[in-house]
């Protein structure tokens, strides 16, 4: 399947902002399930854009602007060919040892409630890791209501679990917290998701999780959609949590308050179908 992405992140500053630095984790890499046909990152103001790799193996662009800017748009355009691998991620870049992905972070710390939930959701029945993970996936999908609004980019798994609501980022965090509590190496994935024609989900960046299976390797689990990762998923960056894989982290001097708008179109080039959605001031992945 071919998936085309057009992704604008638009910052507007109250006053001109100086010393802009943007750290962009917006470039996918190849693995057996996806081939990047073309990909471009274009900031709207003059500056330097350099690509490097971070500790996870993500491609990271550092953008630093030369002059003060009143607004900045980071435009991402690209096309990826994806293949159905039943969610298995192989042939990608692996830089970190597996136990690293058992580490708790403040966004994915399991509360006593999440621990109990993880235990209950996976108790009894087939105790193979794959089966345990599928039951956990289903349980998170059932338990947490998909609802943009009550949570933000800095909401922890604990908090969103308590309100029982959240967006794809929150569901991924809860899944990760629970799986790590079960001593399963798990990580956060940020990327894009191509919705069905009738998909009602608001579509901004998407997020899901990957868990490690002894024989199969890493498998994508999308708690927001309640499925393993499919051909419709474009995998961009990984991290221990949202923070490690965040599409954009930035800093600036001055500029006052900023307004952030995201415009995203994910479609199949030959069919030309698309969804467009913009969001307000949060940077959260909303898929």
């Amino acid at each position: 399947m071919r998936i085309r992405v057009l992704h604008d992140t638009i910052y507007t500053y109250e006053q001109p902002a100086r010393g802009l630095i943007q750290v962009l984790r917006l470039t996918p890499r190849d693995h057996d399930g996806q081939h990047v046909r073309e990909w471009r990152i274009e900031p709207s103001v003059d500056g330097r854009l350099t690509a490097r790799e971070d500790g996870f193996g993500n491609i990271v662009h550092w953008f630093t602007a030369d002059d003060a800017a009143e607004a900045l748009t980071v435009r991402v355009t690209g096309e990826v060919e994806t293949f159905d691998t039943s969610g298995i991620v192989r042939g990608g870049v692996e830089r970190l040892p597996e136990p690293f992905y058992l580490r708790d972070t403040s966004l994915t710390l399991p509360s006593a409630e999440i621990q109990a939930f993880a235990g209950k959701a996976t108790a009894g029945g087939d105790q193979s890791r794959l089966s345990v993970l599928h039951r956990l996936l289903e349980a998170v999908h059932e338990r947490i209501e998909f609802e943009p609004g009550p949570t933000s980019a800095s909401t922890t798994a604990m908090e969103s679990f308590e309100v029982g609501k959240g967006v794809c980022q929150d569901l991924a965090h809860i899944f990760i917290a629970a799986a790590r509590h079960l001593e399963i190496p798990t990580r956060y994935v940020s990327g894009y998701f191509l919705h069905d024609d009738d998909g009602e989900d608001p579509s901004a960046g998407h997020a899901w999780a990957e868990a490690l299976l002894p024989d199969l390797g890493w498998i994508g689990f999308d708690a927001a959609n309640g499925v393993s990762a499919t051909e419709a998923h474009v995998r961009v960056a990984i991290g221990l949590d949202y923070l490690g894989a965040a599409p954009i982290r930035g800093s600036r001097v001055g500029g006052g308050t900023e307004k952030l708008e995201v415009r995203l179109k994910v479609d199949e080039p030959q069919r030309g179908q698309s969804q467009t959605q913009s969001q307000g001031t949060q940077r959260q992945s909303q898929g």
Partner: protein
Amino acid sequence: MALAKAFDEMTGPGDALAGAAVRDAYDALKSWLDTTPPEHFNTRRSQAEMLFRRIGITFAVYGSSDSTERLIPFDIIPRVLTKPEWSFLERGLKQRVTALNMFLNDIYGAEECIKAGVIPADLVYRNQHYQMEMRSFRVPHDLYVHIAGIDIVRTGENDFFVLEDNARTPSGVSYMLENREVMLRLFPELFSRHRVAPVENYPDELLATLRSLAPQSATRDPTVVLLTPGRYNSAFYEHSFLADKLGVELVEATDLFTKDDVVYMRTTEGPRRVDVIYRRLDDDFIDPLVFRPDSVLGVPGLMNAYERGNVTLSNAVGTGIADDKAVYSYMPEIVKFFTGEEPILHNVPTYRCREKEAFSYVMDNLKDLVVKEVNGSGGYGMLVGPHATRREIEEFGRRLKHAPDGFIAQPTLSLSTCPTFVASGVAPRHVDLRPFVLAGADEIRIVPGGLTRVALKEGSLVVNSSQGGGTKDTWVLDA
């Protein structure tokens, strides 16, 4: 109360103040104590306090409601080490810090010690202080720990143990320097009777160390700065004191910026390139683009400049793992593996609560053990079993049960005592020693002695200043 009769620095295993034989190193000091009229001591003690107040040396105590800053009590009776004792410690410290550096270089590089099973993989990789960013580049001169404070305790004539390796931002060296200065002013006669090795050269040694660590890209005259979190930090006094002594700029994050992967300092004459940053700020806060995004104490882009080899951070990022008390328990094996030698300085036997058997032993023996958080420091959140109430032990047991991985336990050591002025006169109080080890690209430097901390409460074994400890001048006798 102390468990058993502790080794006394002045009288050895004998009874401290009951006319027991005095160890040679303390001969002159003992007769000085015996022959000086008590009023003289009282006068000098209040002069010492005045001097410290004038210098303004204070220490903020976290979680203390009465005052945010207070004076750390200073005791005028010095702690004395003989030259052979110090030579032994010095050799041991050099070996230990060499091994720590090889270990850190290895866990962020070739990972030989993990492959060889010297230390369990998950203890390294799951550690919050293991910074995976450090895997992708080599730090300047392959050195991670440049300034270490190694806490040493003594239990007998020849029995020294390392209690903790402080490899992040160890503090206390300003007290070592101030204590000596005050002693020289108050008791010049003592220094004419003893040949005490100087410590005043510490700032020179530190500056030489920092300069030696400058990246290849730096000029022959590298610019060194001291980065502080600011005046609300508990050790801010020390930061400004050291910057002053070193003759380098004391900077906060807002004084620095990065451009094209180079760090600059804002000066009245325009931006000036910075080569070495002696940072007294934890990893988590140094760059909001890489670590905590809410940190306002860090410099955006600093890690990038670091990774590009354009600046040296002292200590390196990621040294916290060597501070971890569970990792500490593997230090004997780590020293052997990397240096090929037997460790000169011994560890205190340590029970790792993450191991089932050790955990149940610890739970059964809480009343006899010292239990510490693996990531804790400053004496916060620890249990000293023999001094705890039943309720404290029960409460601690519950915490321990909840997260065994987070704790280690050690037998309660009978730390050596040193004569100390207290309300009732001179009495033995437990002490430890924190020597400061400087590992530069050229050599390892250690100023003789270090900071002696003393637990002022009778029988107390907790010497941390945050827990009511005081300090003493530490003498290494040259002859």
